[in-house]
């Protein structure tokens, strides 16, 4: 596996690296000289989540410790990948190039002779920031793998649920008096705007009584007129009922009759020709 990596010739680094990588990849166990379709490489390269991920891969592949990455070697391998990605015209996120520049910078700083009497901060290992970043990224990469491994709802764990089909729908809220009146004011305003429309205003008790009387009447059975007037509310009730009957009559909803001369006056709902 490492034979290629150790190839001393820098010119061959890229190819050598491929051989190595392919052997180590899930494609593996293939003869080293086998032609590898570019799509496979693309899939492989696209599986990196960014420059940090690629660096981690390069480090882990060689069992190196993040805390002691050999910058020169890692940089060389990293550059080789970038070149192949570019050669394959893979869409290369800008971050990969930024990382390449950073690696180059660290490498050059490490080549500089360390100033012996330098101040504390310039004494800092130039790899430090990168190592921090790699470590930090790796922690979350591992955390993500653990999240993925946890049993998850709808994949490994299933909520037990029964149908609500048989249940009655929750009742809509009751109307609020205020809302109702507000709505009516809106209607009245619009009716006024249309001006041709007038809503007459009988007393509500009369309108309600009209409805109650209609409820009681059948169109095929006369009832005695006076039976409509008896109410529990006494005299005012009789008046309201009487007015209601008059209104209904005016609206053409009632039909009057008298079985016998001098017999009781009878009333029923008017029937039309249609249902006669």
């Amino acid at each position: 596996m490492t034979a290629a990596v150790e190839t001393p010739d820098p010119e061959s680094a890229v190819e050598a690296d491929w051989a190595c990588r392919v052997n180590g990849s899930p494609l593996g166990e293939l003869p080293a000289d086998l032609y590898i379709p570019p799509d496979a490489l693309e899939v492989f390269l696209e599986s990196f989540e960014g420059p940090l991920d690629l660096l981690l891969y390069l480090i882990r592949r060689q069992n190196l410790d993040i805390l002691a990455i050999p910058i020169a070697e890692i940089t060389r391998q990293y550059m080789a990948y970038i070149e192949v990605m570019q050669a394959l015209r893979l869409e290369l996120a800008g971050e990969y190039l930024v990382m390449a520049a950073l690696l180059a910078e660290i490498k050059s700083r490490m080549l500089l002779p360390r100033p012996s009497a330098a101040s504390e901060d310039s004494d800092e290992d130039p790899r430090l920031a990168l190592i921090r970043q790699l470590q930090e990224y790796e922690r979350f990469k591992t955390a993500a793998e653990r999240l993925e491994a946890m049993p998850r709802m709808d994949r490994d764990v299933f909520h037990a649920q029964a149908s609500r089909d048989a249940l009655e729908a929750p009742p809509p809220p009751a109307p609020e008096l205020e809302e109702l009146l507000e709505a009516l004011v809106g209607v009245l305003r619009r009716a006024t705007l249309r001006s041709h429309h007038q809503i007459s205003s009988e007393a509500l008790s009369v309108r309600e009584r009209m409805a109650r009387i209609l409820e009681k009447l059948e169109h095929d059975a006369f009832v005695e007129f006076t039976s409509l007037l008896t109410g529990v509310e006494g005299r005012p009730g009789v008046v309201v009922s009487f007015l209601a009957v008059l209104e209904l009559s005016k609206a053409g909803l009632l039909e009057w009759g008298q079985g016998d001369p001098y017999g009781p006056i009878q009333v029923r709902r008017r029937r039309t020709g249609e249902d006669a």
Partner: protein
Amino acid sequence: MTERDEREHTETDTPGLDGLELVLEAVLFAASEPLRMQDLVAACTGMEGVGHGEVEAALQRLAEHYRDRSLELVRSASGFRFRVRQRFSSHVQASLPERPPRLSRALLETLAIIAYRQPVTRAEIEDIRGVAVSTQIMRNILEREWVHVVGHKEVPGRPALYATTRTFLDDLGLSRLDELPPLDALRELVDPPVEADSDEGPSGGAADGASSDETAEHPTLQ
């Protein structure tokens, strides 16, 4: 850890015919849709000697187990499903964190017109509102028993005459209809129109949660 234990458990101790009932229970409760017989048989892949007949028999035992519970196993055209028995409706409703939506403006207007103009036909309501009344709204207020049909107007088509009910008064907290303010008093609240397009009314907030059919009605206002 528990996960691994559980999984191993499945592999080593595959439920036999006795476990079939439990497997079907698991699968039916996990499903969000009714399951067809073939789905149920598919769920038993890997269980020996389980076919159509065995599944049928196990479903029978399962239904029997839930006989005295709050759930029932039902078979509909689309398949098998557990459902909550109807008599628990009120409890389920009370438990649901989400509250039902507000009444739409169109519904409130319709209801108000019926209250003040009863007995009234749908055409008359539409005439007053200046817009059509959707069938859905009429069905809604009839189902809610706020309104009922008290007769038919003897004109061509014999349209239904609507009136409000006792339930309507109860829900409003009124004992009699004439406890509603008289129409004349309400009219005074209606300012003379300043602009022709002031149909928004003072109650803009009431339109919240308005159904889409109501929105569709608005263009015809004025």
